[in-house]
């Protein structure tokens, strides 16, 4: 436990040597997974409580939705979009907001209060899975890219090292404090990303440019696939209309 605290402090200060030692430690991945789960649960509980509160005290649909639609219409009028398209977009958003309000107002089997509380709890308990869904596939893809580029570190070692990116996210409950979210969210994200990159470079022992390339490759591949799919959809859409 003491070693974990020392490592955490070193990771927060982006100490490469400590990160390399940590990734080679027996049981480092188990600690890393526990850290990820804890950070996600803390943020998830705060987010779940906020969501349950919003569900309980949601104002009846009306003025807020009308204001959002009017704002959108005002913003669209300053774009080069054709008036017909603008009108259709505004009508679609108005109908979608109305639908959202109608869905939120439906009765729940256990009552409104219990339903909202359970919904908040579900949001909190799924938080670790959401974090895992981003971190694990991406890091495994980075591991494969690193292997292709000549890296020799195993997946357990790389996962253990990069899991420390969750350390700043132990402060995620701060995001629920009104007024702090705007500042805290980018700071925590960038701090976590810096730890991820530093830990990766330290544990993989690839040279700087190749380590950076390995981290960037899966992201670039994902963006390329999304763009190709979007282009195909747009092409098919254009041909059909």
């Amino acid at each position, binding site marked *: 436990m003491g070693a974990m605290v020392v490592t955490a402090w070193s990771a927060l200060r982006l100490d490469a040597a400590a990160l390399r030692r940590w990734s080679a430690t027996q049981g480092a991945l188990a600690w890393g997974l526990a850290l990820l789960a804890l950070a996600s649960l803390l943020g998830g509980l705060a987010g779940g409580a906020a969501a349950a509160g919003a569900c309980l005290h949601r104002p009846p649909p009306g003025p807020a939705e009308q204001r959002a639609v009017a704002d959108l219409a005002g913003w669209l009028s300053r774009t080069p979009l054709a008036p017909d398209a603008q009108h259709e977009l505004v009508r*679609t958003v108005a109908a979608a907001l109305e*639908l959202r309000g109608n869905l939120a107002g439906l009765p*729940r*089997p256990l009552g409104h209060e219990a339903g909202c509380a*359970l919904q908040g709890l579900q949001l909190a308990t*799924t938080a670790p899975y*959401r974090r*895992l869904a981003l971190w694990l596939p991406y890091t*495994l893809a980075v591991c494969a890219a690193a292997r292709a580029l000549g890296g020799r570190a195993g997946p357990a070692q790389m*996962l253990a090292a990069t899991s420390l990116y969750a350390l700043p996210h132990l402060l995620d409950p701060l995001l629920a404090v009104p007024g702090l979210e705007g500042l805290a969210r980018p700071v925590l994200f960038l701090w976590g990303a810096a730890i991820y990159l530093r830990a990766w470079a330290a544990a993989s022992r690839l040279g700087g440019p190749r380590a950076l390339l390995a981290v960037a490759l899966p992201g670039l591949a994902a963006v390329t696939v999304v763009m190709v799919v979007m282009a195909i959809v747009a092409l098919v859409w254009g041909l059909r209309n």
Partner: protein
Amino acid sequence: MSSISALLRLVPQALLFDGDAYYRMKARPRALYDGTLLLLALGVGLGLAGAAGAVVAAGAAPRGDELARVLRAGLARLPALQRLSPWPTTWLHCALLGWLAAPQPGLARLLTTPLALALNWLAYGLLAQRAARLLGGCGSLAETLACTALAEVPRVVLLMPLVSPLGLAAAGIEAWVLAARFQALRAAHGLDGWRAFWAAAAAALLLGAASLALAALQLASRGVG
């Protein structure tokens, strides 16, 4: 008894990407029997957790038929959807509303979850065996199935009863299982890293394509219905 405890000791090792766990699994005297037992226990546990999750979700959300009624009325008023050609929207509409109005009952998951897990494991094992053999692997089908049964253990993290359907958030667990299957094929067939990677990926892609085709057929039959 000691045999079962030795088997259970492989679970945390497999969870933490220890490739030696699969060599130990392969070396067990009744590896396929043990793998099947492990898989069934996992399936029953997941079924119980899924049933509990479904009961909680049913209490938290509005009733499915009410949701379907409001959604049907609301979606019909969306101008952007009205402009789309009818066939994809009709299919999606029918599938979504049919699923909302008649969700799978919680208790049914006690049976369907272990069954789906076992079918998925068998289908993947058969495809992976073929792919690994084509790539020069030398393991038997029993060894492949025993090792890939152990590779399913990352799903134990789903044994949390309050979790609602994960959707895209399940990608992490699937990636974890895929990485474990890569290690399993490496051990079962004595393949080098890249050959094991391609065998694991090819079998997963084939199984994914088959699942998508089945889902599309089901969607089409609902759309026609």
